């Protein structure tokens, strides 16, 4: 018997479902980026003979202007892109978390709609500002 698969238009793939899926993807991406950051910091610290505190510093508070590997332009661009990607997925994940909590307390249709407008606008603005700050760092 043929497999039953619904076309995209008939799956009920609404904005809410998209946000649900996006939230799951962002958390997976977050884990991937954290892992990449830690591995990168371990490699960089091994090359420069750094101690454990340096590894933690380079994992979670990377100073993009002062790379331990020297002024490698390509590496700094890559590091900036990695940090920007991390900020974007964290922001996307966090925004949906705020909406989830909001929806527990506000059940009116208009209240929920406005919450989405406000929170998503904030997320876009915050992401753009963060991207700019990271890029010029």
């Amino acid at each position, binding site marked *: 018997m043929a497999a039953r698969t*619904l076309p995209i238009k008939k799956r009920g793939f609404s904005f809410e479902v998209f946000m649900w899926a996006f939230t799951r993807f962002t958390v997976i991406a977050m884990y991937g980026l954290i892992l990449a950051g830690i591995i990168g910091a371990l490699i960089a610290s091994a090359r420069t003979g750094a101690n454990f505190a340096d590894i933690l510093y380079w994992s979670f508070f990377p100073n993009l202007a002062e790379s331990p590997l020297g002024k490698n332009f390509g590496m700094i661009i890559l590091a900036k892109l990695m940090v920007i990607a991390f900020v974007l997925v964290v922001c996307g994940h966090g925004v949906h978390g705020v909406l*989830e909590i909001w*929806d527990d307390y506000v059940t009116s249709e208009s209240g929920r709609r406005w919450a989405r407008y406000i929170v998503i606008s904030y997320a876009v603005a915050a992401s753009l500002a963060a991207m700019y700050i990271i890029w010029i760092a």
Partner: protein
Amino acid sequence: MEITVKIFRYNPEKDQRGHYVSYTVEADPNDRVLDVLELIKGHKDGSLSFRRSCAHGVCGSDAMRINGRNMLACKTLIRDVGANITVEPLMGLKVAKDLIVDMDPFFDNYKKMLPYMINESPLPADGRERLQSPEQRARFDESTKCIMCAACTTSCPSFWASDEYYGPAALVAAHRFVFDSRDEGASQRLEILSETNGTVRCHTAYNCTNACPRDIQVTKAIGELKMAMVTGKLE
């Protein structure tokens, strides 16, 4: 053995708010909580109100909170809950009297799932049954076991927040038909489930799975509905 049963009491005609009354009764460890409630109603306080019908875990009438957990009173033995028992109505639904809650929001949500077979296709050539393989039947076997007792829905934190959330039991009802190979209403149901009060309100707390007296993997069923929305696969 002597046991103490602390029961939530509320009479809307007399009480401003609910309160607890304790009863001390003799019970056998193999007695069920329902037996004890019947004993109290029959011999101690005839005004005690609670729902019950089949008394064998099939009708789902006597779901209530026993020592803080949603259970069927007819399937819960005294020996499993101890000598000090607290019995309360289900959470998230308005208390009508004592242990009886207003089930209307629960059944309203159930009805929204279109809980009936939708198939507009012509009947098979022999004009009789729409056949289904054992594998196709097994796909939704678990969700057919639901007895609509509301133990899952009323253990759900999202439902406590708002009874507009369809709730686990309604989603299990949707699962039963969405994955039925004979049904053609999956897209209609997934459309309904994609609303703000649909599957996205499930935060996978797993309370529903723990509460189900029929051992249905409720959270898994909801997860399968979510995946069907994303992938469109109904097998």
